[in-house]
Structures are given as C-alpha cells and as structure tokens.
C-alpha cells in the first residue's frame, strides 16, 4: 500500500521502504521514521526527484531523532538530488549509512548521459580513493566516463 505524505510517497517493499517524489515542507518525515522496526530503518531513495531547503531541515530533524532513538538508518539507491544535499550540508548525512547511490556518467562515444547505480559497499576501496567505478554505456556498450568531480561528488562518503 502506498501512503501519500504531501508530495512524497511511501511504500513498503521487501525489508525497507521506498520513498518517491519531493521532500519539502509537506513531507511528513516523522511518519517515515515511525516505520522503523527492531531499531532499523531501510530507505530506498531512487525515486526522490527533488528536495528543497525546508525538506533538508526536516530530513536533518528525522536523522537526528533516529540517532537519539538508536535507530540505524540505511539509505539505498540514493538519487542524485539527495547526493547533492549530502555533499553540500554535512548535517544531512547524520549517522545514516549509504549502501548504494546514483552518479552521473557520460559516454564519449555516443554522447549519452545517464545516472548509474554504484554499490558503495562493493566499491568502497575504490571510492575512498575518489575513483569512480567503470561503467558501460547502456546504449553503445562503450566505457562511460564519470561526469562530475570525484572530490566533490564522493565527498559525502567520507566519515567526519
């Protein structure tokens, strides 16, 4: 069953919850946090297309409340708009762990630009060296190049 939380939707799937849409002043992230079971909350963020400063504020509040309640938050398939916020504002990371995230790649051969999924656990060593994992173009199968500054895009993975 899908719950509508303002412009955000929440749906239970497998061992976690899928969030989609916009995180803004209408999102009820306290409802999301209340879904935690046995001290764990797994969130799939692939469908988040937008987060504004008010959404950022509420996101930080949610993670802060999770830390106080000893709830472990795991983020999976984190979309690019969320990664940008994680990079810009350190507090948005809280104590959450990121299992996988999307990153921009571009193909030099055919010019296709895409957001591709990176497994942060499997590629941990490479990412710590600020090296983007190699990816094949979904269209022409050529090697794609990472399409951002690694120092900027992967900075959210550094633990402070």
């Amino acid at each position, binding site marked *: 069953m899908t719950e509508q939380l303002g412009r955000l939707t929440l749906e239970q799937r497998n061992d976690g919850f899928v969030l989609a849409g916009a995180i803004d002043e209408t999102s009820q992230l306290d409802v999301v946090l209340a879904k935690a079971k046995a001290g764990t909350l797994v969130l799939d963020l692939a469908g988040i297309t937008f987060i504004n400063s008010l959404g950022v504020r509420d996101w930080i509040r949610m993670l802060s409340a999770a830390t106080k309640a000893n709830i472990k938050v795991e983020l999976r398939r984190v979309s690019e708009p969320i990664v940008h916020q994680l990079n810009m504002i350190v507090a948005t990371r809280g104590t959450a762990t990121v299992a996988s995230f999307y990153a*921009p790649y571009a193909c030099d051969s055919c010019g296709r630009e895409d957001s591709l999924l990176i497994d942060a656990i499997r590629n941990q060593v490479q990412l710590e060296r600020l090296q983007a994992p190699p990816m094949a173009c979904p269209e022409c199968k050529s090697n794609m190049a990472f*399409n951002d500054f690694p120092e900027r895009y992967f900075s959210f993975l550094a633990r402070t």
Partner: protein
Amino acid sequence: MSPGQSILVVHPDKKTQRVCQRILGVTGFPVDVADDLAGGLARIEVRKPILIVVDGASVLSPAADAFFAATRGVEACMTLLEVTSAGQVPKILGTGAVTNLLVHPMPVLAEELTVTAQKLIRRDLFGADKYLLWGTELHEVTIVRGGQRGELIGRVAEHVKAIGQSPRVAQAAMLVTDELVSNAVHNAPVDGSGDHYRKDLPRDVELLLDEAHQVRVRWGCDARYLAIEVRDKFGSLDRDTILRSLGRTGVRETGGGAGMGVALTYRSCDHLVFNLAPGRQTEVVALIDVRASAADRGPASSYNVFVERA
C-alpha cells in the same frame, strides 16, 4: 560618462591585464591597470573608478582590508578568480567584502565582464534578458498564491526537459525556482518597522497574495544559459544579508526559511545575480550553464550584488 571616471584593473598577471583592458575598453571608459593592491589604491586616489576588477587571490592578502575599505564608494568591485583557485571561495565569502565574484577559466570570458560594466554604466540593472542572447523567449508567471510554487516548479521542470535539457539542469532549475519563490513570498515582505512578517508562516498553508505581495517569475534558455528570474516588490534584501547567506553551510532547526535558501540556490547554479532597489524591488537571476556537463562546470559559482543608486 563623467570626466575623470575610469575602470581599474588590479591583477599581477600581464596577460589578464591585457585581456581585461581589451574587453572593458569597449565601454569607452579609460582602463587603468595596477599590478597589486597598493598600486590599485594609488590609482583610486587619482580618479574614482566606476568599476574595479581585482584578482581574487589578493582578496586574502593583508592589504585587502584597506583596499576594500577604499572601494566602498565605488559602484562595483568585481573579483576575478581563476577556476583553479576556486577552493578559496569559502574564504572569500568569509570576508563579507566581495560583492561581485567571477569564477572564470582562462582567458577571461568577455560576456560577464561586459554585462557587469554596462549595467553599471547605464544604471540599468534589472532583467535576466541582459544575460541571454538576442531573441531568447522569456516565459512569465505571476505568483498570486503561495501554493502556486509547487505547480510552478513542476511546470519549469517540464519545460526544461521539453527543450532537450538534461535531468541535471531540470533538477537545478526546480531547486532554484523553489528557493527563490519561497524567499520572495515569505521572506521579502517587510513592514515599516523592518519586520519580516511572513517569514515564520508555515509554507504548506495556502496564502493568497494581493498585488503588493505578488511575485513575478520569468525563465528562458538561449542554449548557453537557462536563466531563472524572480522579482518581488519589497526590495528588503540587503547586500550584507546576501554575503552572509552565500557562505552558509549550516541549517537552522527552526523557522520557515531554514536559512539555507540563498546558499542552496548559489551552489545549484553557475552564476547568481542580485539586483537590489532598496524599498522598491528585489530581483534575483540564477544562471545555469546548459552547455557544460557536470564535470566541465567550474567547482564554484560566480555571483554579483548590484544596488541601484538614487
């Protein structure tokens, strides 16, 4: 042009000096050059420049305080910072003294310097069209209720995608539009005593806007930049607040605006322009470079703060 007025370029690199001289010479103003801040100060004493272009690296030198104090009366002091030195932007923002920062590749692009100079010389600050190529269509919407913001960002994103721009550009456009409209609707309104009486109103409660509170939004793309312009009728945003806000990295736990709107907008676009007419209107223009991929974009963005003089 008033007699004795000039443009001053303060930069240690001879090549940059020459490039700036050629670009700014087209304004018809004499262009003076100095190698360092001390030389620049000496020039300022001789004739008052309408525009000063100064090397960004020198902003952090010990002589900078005296130099920027002397430039307070100048219409604009534009700071050039090479892309390779973009890591210095937080420190430059921290000085609170730099009202115009152009983060640029080498050689310096003529467009931003020319637009800045012409805006000051002609005393004509307002309008995103100054940053777009001739013939670019600007779409316009008047915000008459607070809840229109969500609909508008959806419309802007659809339009950006429909004209063939990347998801990155659409995402940036959505964020910029949302933050600027939110600021104009909730933070701009101010009463006679300076109280921002709508700043703490809940953003998710509908708010009807009378004519004085309505906000104009325009956007257009010339295949170089997507420009998003938001204008309110209060003119309450001031230079010092902007300079403080640009460098923010923290978020307030309370309050409506979260205190991050300007900072997020700045980091989501390539060039942010504030046109201020105190007590009359504020216009913010965000420029998103649609030519560059994320990897080709500069690691820091440019900004201008223009204040209309009586």
